């Protein structure tokens, strides 16, 4: 074996703990790189999963997007040329509820020609009803037609094959009683585990030939364009796109991936810092070796090469483990998120090679600075040791950088477009300069303050040495950077997570009663009053739902659609809006046509409180109405979709689709009493709404069921994945702090020996460590918070990437929490490591060369 290689291996063996830390960081970096190369696949497939589940490989989807419009399957059939041999599959899909004896659940009804569907698609069944027959009546929609449920849904709802369930059919305003023929395994149309879809025959709900979605599969791919033209002409109001809505999914995927990668870059940067600090220790230990090599005639290039070989060894070990672990991580992630489509994610050779190459590059880049610095130094400089005292800070440069950071951050609030990118670049440079220059003056100032409080003992020593110690400044800079990086990554992940926050979660109540029938206000009040009369009910509000459009938006521009709610009174508004200002109620009551607008719309359209806006109807039926409102308040709810506003019900009674009653109950009820109360409320609502034996187009749901049950397990999976990522980032930050602390404290062993030699007691030493830790933590938090403030200014541009417009406020509140958390973690870690180090300091090694 090459003698230098042999020597390097022996050297590594002498620095086991730091070598392990470097290898560990490279493993993590490689895993993250490998995962990131597949994350786009994951996002894409998660987004496409819901559509693919129904499409099952179809080329084209023609749909009214569940907006209530229907069309005729016979008409669609007529438009298909028999010679093209196009396969068609018709659906009537709608949201509904399933009623059981003790609960109500949200479902998506998927009506098809069931026998044909089962002929064309292979469904695996977990359970099958063994009864004589499924259909026992010729009268449809009354009872006992068959229905198929997904395995997970059935399990969650405690339903078995052979059970009878009731499904609300809005067309007939009745509950259809159906028998569960099969419980299907989570494949095919039931492939989304927590999906709430039920599959039944058109006849079960008394609908023949009326559909709202058709999937077409072409023999000749060229037919796509031909039929796109035909159907666009025939159905201009319908959506016509790829069967699995690939373009839509791609757009969402690109945005999410972009954000994810931005977060990843910051994570890798933090990992590089950890790697650098670890290597700094190793390179110091290698100082004597460098002297020997140089004394033996090695050139700086040769010394660089020798040191690089060591880093390469770390990189090769780390990336080998990382690639294997990355592949395993992907297997776990994809199987938990995309159980049915696990094979969609591919692992071509380039993913391995590129991950490995970047990991090597990152490893070398992280360690290059100490290597080059050591290689360049003369033997005399190396023998003299590192100069670790700080030079005085250039106060002018410090003031300039401070002014620049604040000025550019403020500027960012007022500019748009390409200017944001340019100012952001300058801001990052200014922020870097600020961190570098500000650490020492702030440490010095804090030391001065601490010294005023305590002029003797261990703390006093820390106040005398902290601002002259280069290592402490480096730690402060690292800690500030970790703080800032953690803040930005956490913020970015929060943004990505918004995409899976259910829309309905914006409303706050215990029960939600949805009425689909249009009534006058007296009719709604009657329902409200009947519920309010139940003694355990605390309050009931209600809102009408409809859609208006922002001014100057052409009707086909979906981006201009605004979900509009007509609220019965201000109490109803308070149940659906977050952080309303204190004077909103007074304004609501005293204004003729008030509107409370969600913050996203306010930012997107640059509206202000006090603006008068004229909205447009979505249908020409309402062009004669005036939809002009005065903005009197802002709703700060944030969910996956926030183009929402609230007006008075009297201003909006002419057009709406449905009404929601929001019911709050006594919170002190037992579980049994609450279950009973739900049934009482459900009956009361149905009774108050019923007319001529019809249900009255009304159904009741518990809040969690209504708000979250439609959330698929993939969405939950994404949310959990992102949460895991966030936790990983906090862990990495803590790991970084531990490593930096160990590096810094153990590196100062000899300095601490002098203190001990001069009579430093354990109490002195503890106070000294606490003093240093506090000074560093406070300084880092202060600088980190300023950086978070700067980053906060960049967040609106980032959120615009995913078409979200969020008011982040001028001062990031989460930054305060994060600052306290990181400071506390640092003080504890530093203190513990110091105490451990104290045990390792033996004064009998004092007569060695110390500095």
């Amino acid at each position: 074996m090459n003698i230098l290689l042999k020597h390097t291996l022996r050297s590594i063996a002498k620095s086991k703990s730091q070598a392990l830390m470097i290898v560990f960081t490279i493993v993590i970096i490689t895993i993250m790189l490998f995962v990131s190369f597949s994350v786009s696949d994951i996002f894409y497939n998660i987004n496409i999963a819901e559509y693919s589940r129904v499409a099952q490989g179809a080329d084209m989807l023609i749909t009214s997007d569940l907006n209530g419009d229907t069309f005729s399957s016979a008409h669609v059939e007529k438009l298909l040329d028999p010679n093209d041999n196009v396969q068609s599959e018709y659906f009537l899909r709608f949201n509904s509820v399933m009623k059981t004896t003790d609960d109500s659940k949200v479902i998506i009804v998927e009506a098809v020609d069931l026998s044909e569907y089962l002929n064309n698609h292979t469904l695996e069944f977990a359970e099958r009803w063994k009864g004589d027959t499924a259909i026992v009546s010729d009268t449809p929609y009354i009872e006992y037609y068959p229905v198929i449920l997904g395995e997970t849904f059935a399990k969650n709802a405690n339903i078995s094959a052979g059970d009878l369930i009731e499904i609300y059919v809005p067309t007939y305003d009745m509950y259809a009683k159906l028998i569960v023929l099969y419980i299907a395994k989570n494949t095919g149309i039931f492939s989304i585990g927590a999906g709430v879809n039920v599959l039944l025959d058109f006849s079960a709900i008394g609908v023949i030939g009326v559909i709202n979605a058709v999937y077409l599969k072409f023999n000749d791919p060229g037919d796509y364009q031909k039929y796109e033209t035909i159907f666009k002409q025939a159905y201009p109001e319908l959506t016509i796109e790829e069967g699995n809505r690939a373009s839509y999914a791609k757009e969402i995927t690109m945005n999410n991936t972009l954000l994810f990668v931005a977060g990843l870059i910051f994570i890798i940067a933090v990992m590089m810092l950890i790697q650098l600090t670890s290597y700094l220790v190793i390179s110091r230990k290698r100082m004597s070796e460098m002297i020997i090599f140089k004394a033996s005639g090695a050139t700086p290039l040769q010394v660089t090469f020798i040191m690089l070989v060591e880093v390469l060894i770390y990189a090769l070990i780390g990336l080998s483990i990382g690639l294997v672990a990355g592949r395993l991580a992907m297997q776990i992630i994809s199987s938990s998120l995309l159980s049915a489509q696990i094979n969609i994610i591919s692992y071509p050779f380039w993913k391995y090679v590129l991950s490995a190459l970047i990991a090597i590059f990152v490893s070398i880049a992280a360690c290059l600075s100490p290597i080059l610095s050591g290689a360049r130094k003369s033997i005399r400089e190396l023998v003299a040791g590192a100069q670790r005292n700080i030079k005085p800070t250039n106060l002018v440069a410090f003031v300039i950088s401070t002014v620049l950071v604040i000025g550019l951050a403020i500027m960012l609030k007022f500019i748009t477009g390409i200017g944001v990118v340019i100012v952001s670049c300058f801001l990052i440079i200014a922020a870097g300069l600020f961190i570098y220059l500000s650490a020492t003056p702030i440490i010095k100032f804090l030391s001065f303050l601490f010294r005023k409080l305590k002029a003797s003992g261990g703390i006093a020593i820390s106040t005398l040495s902290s601002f002259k110690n280069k290592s402490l400044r480096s730690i402060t800079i690292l800690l500030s950077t970790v703080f800032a990086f953690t803040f930005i990554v956490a913020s970015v992940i929060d943004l990505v997570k918004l995409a899976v926050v259910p829309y309905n979660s914006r409303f706050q109540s215990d029960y939600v009663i949805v009425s689909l029938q249009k009534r006058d206000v007296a009719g709604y009040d009657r329902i409200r009053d009947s519920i309010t009369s139940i003694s355990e009910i605390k309050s009931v509000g209600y809102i009408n739902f409809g859609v208006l459009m922002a001014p100057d938006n052409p009707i086909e521009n979906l981006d201009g659609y605004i979900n509009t709610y007509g609220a019965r009174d201000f109490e109803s508004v308070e149940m659906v809006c977050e952080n309303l200002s204190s004077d909103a109620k007074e304004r609501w009551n005293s204004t003729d046509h008030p509107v409370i607008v969600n913050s996203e719309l306010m930012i997107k359209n640059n509206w202000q409180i006090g603006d008068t806006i004229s909205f447009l109807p979505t249908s020409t039926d309402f062009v004669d109405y005036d939809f002009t409102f005065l903005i009197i308040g802002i709703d700060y709810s944030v969910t996956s979709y926030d183009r929402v506003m609230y007006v008075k019900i009297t201003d909006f009674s002419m057009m709406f689709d449905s009404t929601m009653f929001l019911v709050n109950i006594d919170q002190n009820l037992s579980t049994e009493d609450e279950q009973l109360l739900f049934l009482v409320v459900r009956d009361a609502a149905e009774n108050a709404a019923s007319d001529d034996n019809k249900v009255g187009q009304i159904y009741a749901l518990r809040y969690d069921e209504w708000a979250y049950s439609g959330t698929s397990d993939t969405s939950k999976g994404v949310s959990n994945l992102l949460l895991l990522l966030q936790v990983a980032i906090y862990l990495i930050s803590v790991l970084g702090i531990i490593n930096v602390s160990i590096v810094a404290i153990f590196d100062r062993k000899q300095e601490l020996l002098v203190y001990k030699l001069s009579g430093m007691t354990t109490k002195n030493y503890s106070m000294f460590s606490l003093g240093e830790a506090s000074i560093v933590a406070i300084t880092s938090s202060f600088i980190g918070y300023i950086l978070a403030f700067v980053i906060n200014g960049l967040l609106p541009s980032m959120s615009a990437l995913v078409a979200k417009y969020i008011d982040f406020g001028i001062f990031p509140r989460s930054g305060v929490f994060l600052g306290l958390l990181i400071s506390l973690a640092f003080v504890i870690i530093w203190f513990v490591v110091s105490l451990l180090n104290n045990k390792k300091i033996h004064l009998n090694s004092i007569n060695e060369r110390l500095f």
Partner: protein
Amino acid sequence: MSLLNAIDVVKRFGETTILDSVSLSVDSGDFLSITGASGSGKSTLLTILGGIDKPTDGQVLIDGKDITKMKENELSILRRTTIGFVFQFFNLAPYLTVRENILLPIILSGKSQKSYSSKFEQLVEYLGIQDHVSKLPDKLSGGEQQRVAIARGLIFDPKMILMDEPTGNLDSKTGNDIMKLLKDINKNLNTTIIQVTHSEKNAQFANRIINISDGKLVETTNKGPGVDEHTA
């Protein structure tokens, strides 16, 4: 009563006996040199006498108190108030100025620095480092750094100073100056000095020389040239 009494001190590292039943008595005002070949155990003896290391067996009494039985905190206070240390590599805190380094034991004891300001002024003037008090150690020469270390050792008026090769890292001229200074301190301040040295010449500055060989002490009474001869 002697200031320091080492009674039957034994130090073993594994199977190897470094100090073999060493007994030694040092009176107030003594200047003692401990000499011996490399690895003879002279530095080990010094660290045991200063409470830095513990003997395997035996007692070390300072002012009648057995320091081998003392807890670490008691030893810290002893080091701060009764014993000053000076070592070959100066051992100054790199992030403290000369002034702060000298006052380090005072700061650690929680005493007012002001009450020691005149003592501090006297010391830095006596040691010739009054122009360097605001400097950091890396701005000083080796001789100056060693003077700062001596000043730190003296600031609390210790009863004795223990030194391990105090001039080992200095050129001969500077080393000689430091030794003369130490002799001066011993004479004028009546501070007991115990030094370990391998230099025959430096050993002669003491009024007692002890040679250590095979873990045992051999005392050579020294009435030799001392400081007068060296200053000549």
